[in-house]
């Protein structure tokens, strides 16, 4: 499709949209890098409200990897859980791949969409 030159307003709209969509993701990524003292400011008002609201600092003042250290080094359960999830994904994929190949070949004409719908509903 030959694109008509998109005007600036469209780009601005896209930029705002992307920021809005990314904001929680960035928060989720930045929070683990905060040190415990800063994290307290963010999280403790949720548990025990004493007039102070949660603070969000998009740039941590004292970035530290201590949360990751605790997760990766001190919690052996994490590996078990992680590999369990991966195994499940692998298993589900290996089961559905033959079906995908089968549907792709289009052998079952009208059955295609119905089958696809049925199987996806059962997921």
């Amino acid at each position, binding site marked *: 499709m030959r694109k008509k030159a998109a005007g600036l307003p469209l780009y601005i709209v896209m930029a705002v949209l992307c920021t809005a969509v990314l904001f929680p993701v960035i928060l989720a990524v930045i929070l683990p890098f905060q040190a415990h003292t800063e994290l307290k400011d963010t999280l403790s008002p949720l548990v025990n*409200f*004493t007039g102070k609201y949660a603070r969000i600092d998009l740039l941590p003042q004292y970035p530290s990897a201590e949360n990751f250290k605790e997760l*990766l080094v001190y919690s052996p359960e994490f*590996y*078990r859980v992680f*590999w369990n999830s991966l195994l499940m994904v692998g298993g589900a994929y290996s089961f559905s791949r033959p079906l995908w190949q089968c549907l792709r070949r289009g052998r079952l004409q009208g059955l295609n969409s119905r089958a696809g719908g049925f199987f996806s509903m059962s997921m």
Partner: protein
Amino acid sequence: MKKIMKITAFIAALVMSASAVSCSSSKPAEIKQLSAKGGYAEKKLEFAYGDLGPASEFTDIGGKVGAVLPFTDELCYISKDGTRIFRDVLSDLDEVNNDDIATIFAASEYGYLYWKMNRNVWVLSSDGTENQVSGLENIMYAEFSEDGRLFACNSNGDILEVDISTGDTKKVTGGNGIFSAFDIIGSNIIYIDDDGAHFYDIDSGRETEVPAALKDFLGSYRHERLTSGIAVDICRGNDDDIYIGCPDGLYRYVMGGNIIEQLIDGFVSRFGDPSDEMISLYCGEDGTLYAAFVSGVYSYRFDPELETAAASELKVYTLEKNNTVSKLISGFASENRGVKVDLQVGMKEGMTYSDAMKELTTQILSGNAPDLMILDGLDIENLIDKNMLIDLSENSEKWLPENDLLSNVVNWNDHDGKLCSVACRFRLPAVGAEEDELKKISSYADIADLCEEYREKYDPKETFMGYYDVNDSVRIGLIYEWNRLFGSSPDKEALTEFFDSCKRIHDAEYAGNAEGSTYWSPDVTSENAFSARFWGALGYKIIATGAVNDISRDMSLLTSVDESVLGKKLSYRLGISEDSRSFLPVCNIGITQSAKNADDAYRFLAYALKDKTQENGNDYDGFPVNVKALKKIYSRNVNDEYDYTTSLDVYGDDGKVKDTVELDIRSMDNAEVKEFDDYIKSLDEPVYIEYAVREIAESAGEKCLSGTETAEQAAEETMKQLELRMKE
């Protein structure tokens, strides 16, 4: 760019897989469970009195193996055939003892280390010289090594070597926190601190590596995770092995191996009985194991013919684990050796109530329903609607004891003759305060008024309510107000008033940044600590709230208040208002319809209601419902065996000590017994607290207490959730 990302992804995958691989490569220690045939038979040694608490650990003096008692300077040693205890006075110890030795920490042929009543530690060497030990304040354990060196540890985690001839100490190494085990095996000191298990070689003066199998096993018995003091004891066996005694049972570990073998299951033996406490272990030359408990000395001999494979299995389910249930189970199991009791705790560590219920539902659906359920906290009405529980009134001859029971308490859940659950114990809500003020109290709101009044009048940094937790005002308030709030249908106005009272009490209590209560005991939950608070009220200004649990401890205290001694008229009332006859049924037992082992379930219920069992409950279990047991406990007032005198500091209104008095605590006399007995026979208002509803009320209450919501909003939130719950 793409290439860099691909490489990064590849490296990340490698890192993750590397750690996964390394995690699985080290084989975890195997704990070999009991085999079906052949086990250790327990036998109590005769003439072993339960006085070995302050005695030393088992030691070999002159060929006789036993423990040294401080008060009588006797060596209580085991006879050659291992069936009885003989006593022999130790002359050298006797000479220096002027009736002031309180505890003997270590004893051997090389000397003794003991603690005198003037709070000092002394050593006595084998040549008779006695020296005071320096630097061993807060001593916790001490032990002699085989070659005569003496090591001791204190509550700071320091391990010191003590010179037996001079009393000087030298710090050898240090651990972290309070030790839960300290034993010398061969040339190693084995100790367990907050960091886990350690081996310290006394010959080389260095820490040596703990075998991996042992490290994990011992590390799980750190002090912070245990409720009683000496929880783990280790003794040396005869074949380069060690025996480990802990709340989970008796285990054997061959040095250098990878297997820790369980010899005795703590769950169904004395080792796991919360009412008894293990003091020390010893392995005899013939392989017989001896264990000293608070209740006496027992021998454990291996009997290859002993049938440990149980003839039947009884599955018991309880929502929350508590000492009452544990004691019932271990008591029942020890009397019925042929039954394997399997206790399933619904709310294990970290589980929520709904997770526990889902697990139970799944179990029931799959046909693995428990045989017997301890229904405290569960939604009994729902279980009865679903026909989950047997009607116990139909087979009452199978479980009713010969003696009478308090039927108003036991049969509180009687639905027109259909009795699906019986209560084995009960508690009584009570209020205590100065008499004039007590007269004005007839509801929880009145307590709130009084608390605010106190906060205005008296300004001390102490607390008035003696709470353990900031949310206690809600939790304890529910005991008094449950039926009014949730009885027939939730009442919004009553809820608003309730949360308002809780908030007022909370604010008045913590207004001056008062410190938390110091009356703390690990075994008692806050709502059952009425007597502890009343005790505080003897000296400080306290409004005692909570539930009363037993006669010997609680009721004796309550009825022994002497105005002339204390200088104030302190009084108590059972029930929040004059005409309230409420009680909290505890340890409610029901038998499931689909129970595979109904016979043993009936036997368990009969055991729980038997007079012997009911007489010997744990502290804080609740009052017994067996009339004969009650009478026996009442009759304890006849001799003054249970009387004692205590000295108290009484504080004035300004927060300073006014006086130190001596108060006699006596068992209830006949008139008081009659009054109490009449009262409990007239109880007619059961207060049964369901976990799910309590959780809803407490979470709304918490928000109200912390100021996030007003009392009305909290009440509305509670109402909405409960209404939704009822609609389902």
